[in-house]
């Protein structure tokens, strides 16, 4: 069934993971199309009724367990469909200890050995597999765009929830898919999302960046604002960001409850993509580029919801609770549950009980135990440069355990070539190996029980980084500043010399 039939049959039809009626959604027959809709329809194999379709997958990205999953299927006599569209990288279960290469048992299960063992077999099928010994290894959502395995216009799927990060290069990407289904069919069954556009306007103040934009957005719109939505980030301020900054924003789309997040490709995107290892070249590049230029949403495309976020005057953000929507500016005071909208009062009370904070206190000067800089949210070279600028010539506070984890081996090499690792080490940071680590508290990389961590990652959920561990989400420079001060501080004041 083709698109026009689809539109007719879905107006006011049944719904998926939310109950909100659909009517404004697909009532756009004469209107232009959004980028999400264009990419959706380019991949639509079969319409299954309601809002569900079967879609062709351009890239399946597998984690640590990827080689083992493929091996199981091959051993069972199964055939991998479109293997040349599959790639794998070890990130979630690898140790980030520098000893992981020699003491392989530090890595969970057999993950460190699966990749070298199967590398040739996989390569023969057209599957790239990056284990800890490979120069491309890193966090999936850093590696994909960095290698050019992620390209504009693609439908890119994986298991991991932060796959939405890749949307920053102008593709549609989501997690939650199972390896087996995609490997065997080359397709996914998916419910179509509504289009939500977030327009960023205004200007960014000093030391305010992509992370603050998305945290502020989630605070303003709510952690469920993206329910059943594909979010397109747009607006003049967004356009001024680097692709890496856009990735940070797209990364937290899932924390907004969205199905995915994306940014329409532009010259910034093409410049970023052009030199990548797996990007098309020559005639194929021209062909791809011509297609990519047709992807941005049409001027008359209808959005289910259109929001504008003015960043002028917005401070560096910091979370105080257990949801990314529990967020305030660094000079603000911790809010009281009684000031919350009625339906959120209980949640705020539970949040403050968990984070052991007192309403009315400033969030600044809250003492901390640990600092985590890493994760698919912000561990790219521009993030590490920003952190190093804060750290240069300073020392980590004596009672703080502070880690920096480059998002990939290429980022790590680049940082070392620029001497950033030296700056971090001299200051007292641990400079560790690429992987997911403390972001989700795995493989022994945990925030100690009940301790308070300032993290540049994406989730501050109860127990996320460790049992009873408290997480304050901030930008990378804010995390670096907290490490220096031993408490939550305003990076702007630290850099102005106003904080010792």
């Amino acid at each position, binding site marked *: 069934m083709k698109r026009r039939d689809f539109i007719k049959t879905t107006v006011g039809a*049944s*719904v*998926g*993971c*939310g*109950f*909100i009626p659909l009517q404004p959604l697909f009532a756009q027959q004469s209107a232009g199309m959004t980028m999400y809709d264009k990419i959706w329809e380019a991949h639509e*194999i*079969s319409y299954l*009724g*309601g*809002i*569900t379709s*079967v879609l*062709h997958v*351009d890239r399946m990205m597998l984690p640590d367990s990827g080689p083992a999953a493929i091996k199981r299927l091959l051993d069972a006599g199964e055939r991998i469909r479109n293997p*040349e569209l599959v790639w794998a990288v070890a990130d979630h279960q690898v140790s980030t200890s520098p000893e992981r290469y020699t003491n392989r048992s530090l890595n969970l299960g057999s993950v460190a050995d699966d990749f070298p063992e199967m590398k040739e077999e996989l390569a023969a099928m*057209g599957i*790239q597999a990056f284990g800890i010994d490979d120069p491309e290894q890193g966090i999936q959502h850093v590696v994909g765009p960095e290698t*050019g*395995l992620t*390209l504009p216009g*693609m439908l890119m799927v994986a*298991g991991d*929830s932060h796959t939405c990060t890749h949307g920053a290069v102008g593709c549609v990407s989501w*997690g*939650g898919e*199972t390896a*087996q289904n995609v490997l065997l*069919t*080359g*397709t996914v*069954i998916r419910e179509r999302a509504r289009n939500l556009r977030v327009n960023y306007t205004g200007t960014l103040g000093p030391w305010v960046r992509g992370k603050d934009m998305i945290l502020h957005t989630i605070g303003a719109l709510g*952690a*469920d604002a993206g*329910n*059943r939505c594909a979010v397109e980030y747009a607006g003049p301020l967004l356009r001024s960001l680097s692709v890496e900054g856009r990735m940070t924003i797209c990364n937290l789309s*899932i924390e907004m*409850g969205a*199905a995915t997040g994306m940014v329409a490709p532009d010259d910034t995107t093409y410049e970023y993509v052009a030199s990548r290892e*797996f990007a*098309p070249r020559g005639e*194929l*590049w021209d062909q791809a580029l011509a*297609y990519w230029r047709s992807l941005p949403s049409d001027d008359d495309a209808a959005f289910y919801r259109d929001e504008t976020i003015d960043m002028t005057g917005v401070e560096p953000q910091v979370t105080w609770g257990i*949801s990314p*929507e529990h967020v305030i500016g660094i000079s603000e005071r911790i809010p009281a549950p009684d000031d919350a909208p009625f*339906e959120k009062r*209980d*949640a705020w009370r*539970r949040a403050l009980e968990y984070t052991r904070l007192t309403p009315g206190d400033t969030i600044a000067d809250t003492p901390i135990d640990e600092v985590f800089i890493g994760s698919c949210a912000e561990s790219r070279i521009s993030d590490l440069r920003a952190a190093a600028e804060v750290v240069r010539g300073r020392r980590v506070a004596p009672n703080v355990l502070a880690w920096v984890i480059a998002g990939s081996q290429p980022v790590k090499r680049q940082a070392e070539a620029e001497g950033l690792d030296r700056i971090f080490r001299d200051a007292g940071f641990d400079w560790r190996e690429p992987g997911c680590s403390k972001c*989700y508290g*795995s*493989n022994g990389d945990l925030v100690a029980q009940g301790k308070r961590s300032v993290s540049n990652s994406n989730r501050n*959920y*109860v*127990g*996320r980084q460790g*049992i*009873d561990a408290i997480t304050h989400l901030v930008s990378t420079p804010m995390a670096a500043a907290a490490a220096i001060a031993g408490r939550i501080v305003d990076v702007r004041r630290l850099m102005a010399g106003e904080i010792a």
Partner: protein
Amino acid sequence: MAEEPAALGNGPQFIRQEGIAAPLMMDNVDTDIISPIGKPPNPGATPETRAFEPIRFFADGREKPDFILNQEGFRRSSIILAGKNFGTGSSRPVAVSRPLAGGINVVIAESFGPLFYDNSVRQGLLAVPLEGDKIERIAEWAFANRGQTILVDLQRQVIEVPGLDTFAFRIEPRVREKLLGGFTVREELSRLDEEIHVFAQSYRQSWPWIYQK
């Protein structure tokens, strides 16, 4: 009682669930609350009680008395009532398999995190989206009628609450068909094998740069 449809596939089947409904009336119950990973199991947890560990147990293994499934009349619940954005967060399959292992076969919520929702469809937990005011009414009833059961019927797409009301719910036709028939995703797709194959062939011709990696 309607006649039981036989399972047509090898996947999880869901037809109806009669059981106690436990009000967990919070928004944004995230997957790190439902099923933490990477940490040792709570010392108090059994395979049946690993779901909701951080709000179910203190770190030393004692039960938290305010958690609904620790309360008399709700320990054997098979249905969870919740607020908005239930299951927000990660794609971890254990966010669905641990509640299932504890006998939770249905979650009725105002909305769901997208990846929890997908996992529930795959694993056969019925995620029912319902308006908040209706969930509130069922929750009030559940507190007032501890130990009594409600019926969630996927065939008829209704929730029957004795003495209160019958609530119709909507669900994607594909999800209904999959769960009633007990199909795996692969079985669903196998019917489309030819169509998928034809599409992939022409796709490869049209977009050669995608294959040039």
